[in-house]
């Protein structure tokens, strides 16, 4: 379960609208719930730049240096990195083979918003599971907007 504050949910969807027809990307911040079910509560999102200038309409990449800064500030506030979000311009809100191949944050959420003709439509979340790179997979994760 990915619980997310309304303001954070709106912000990540709006980000996809702002960068259309390019993919947007960012970080989900908050805390892992102590419920034994790997639930997470997103309290804020951090917008990032998409460094894939060569193919921004169907690729995204977050600069690790930008992530380190976000992580540092989050730690100061007592928050954790829970996952990431990005948009699929004029494509479904489903993970692609590229998304899976490039996903390495096990236990984290990957939120995808479909942006059709400039307007955000569906938003879905997928949790990266598995013991390592050899057996990793995405599983559907419910989103609870608070």
């Amino acid at each position, binding site marked *: 379960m990915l619980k997310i504050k309304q303001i954070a949910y709106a912000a990540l969807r709006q980000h996809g609208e702002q960068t259309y027809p390019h993919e947007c990307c960012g970080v989900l911040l908050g805390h892992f719930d102590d419920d034994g079910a790997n639930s997470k509560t997103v309290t804020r999102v951090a917008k990032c730049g998409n460094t894939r200038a060569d193919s921004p309409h169907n690729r995204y990449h977050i600069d690790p240096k930008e992530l*380190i800064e976000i992580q540092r500030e989050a730690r100061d506030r007592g928050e954790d990195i829970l996952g990431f979000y990005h948009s699929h311009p004029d494509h479904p809100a489903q993970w692609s083979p590229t998304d899976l191949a490039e996903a390495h*944050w096990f236990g984290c959420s990957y939120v995808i918003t479909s942006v059709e003709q400039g307007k955000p439509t569906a938003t879905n979340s997928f949790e990266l599971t598995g013991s390592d790179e050899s057996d990793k997979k995405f599983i559907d994760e419910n989103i609870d907007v608070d």
Partner: protein
Amino acid sequence: MDRLCVPDPNFQLHLLAYHSILIYMPKIQIPSPLRQYSGKQSSVDVTAKTVAEALAGLVAQHPDLKRHLFADDGKLRAFVNVYVNDEDMRYLQKEATALKDGDTISIVPSIAGGCEPQRSKLPFTTHL
């Protein structure tokens, strides 16, 4: 004469010896997905003079981290970024990068993806 003012003829040798044994304790920041393998610690202190020594110290303390950081050939996995403070070690001296007191090492698995696989170019173009 004050004893402290007498120059030590072996001062430079002593200084060299001091630096040769000086080992710093950098802090390694562990990203959230890897904390299950680091005893849930978000940072780990190691004793090391270089990045290579720091990473070796980390996996010595937490052996389960090894397969997530290193491939079977012992090389750091391609998607694992290692930063010394705010600098990518690949643009420093890689694993041989020297550390100094107060340095922070960040391990950052890459974050990337995209909505469709890269299309390969067709070898021929057909004109209708």
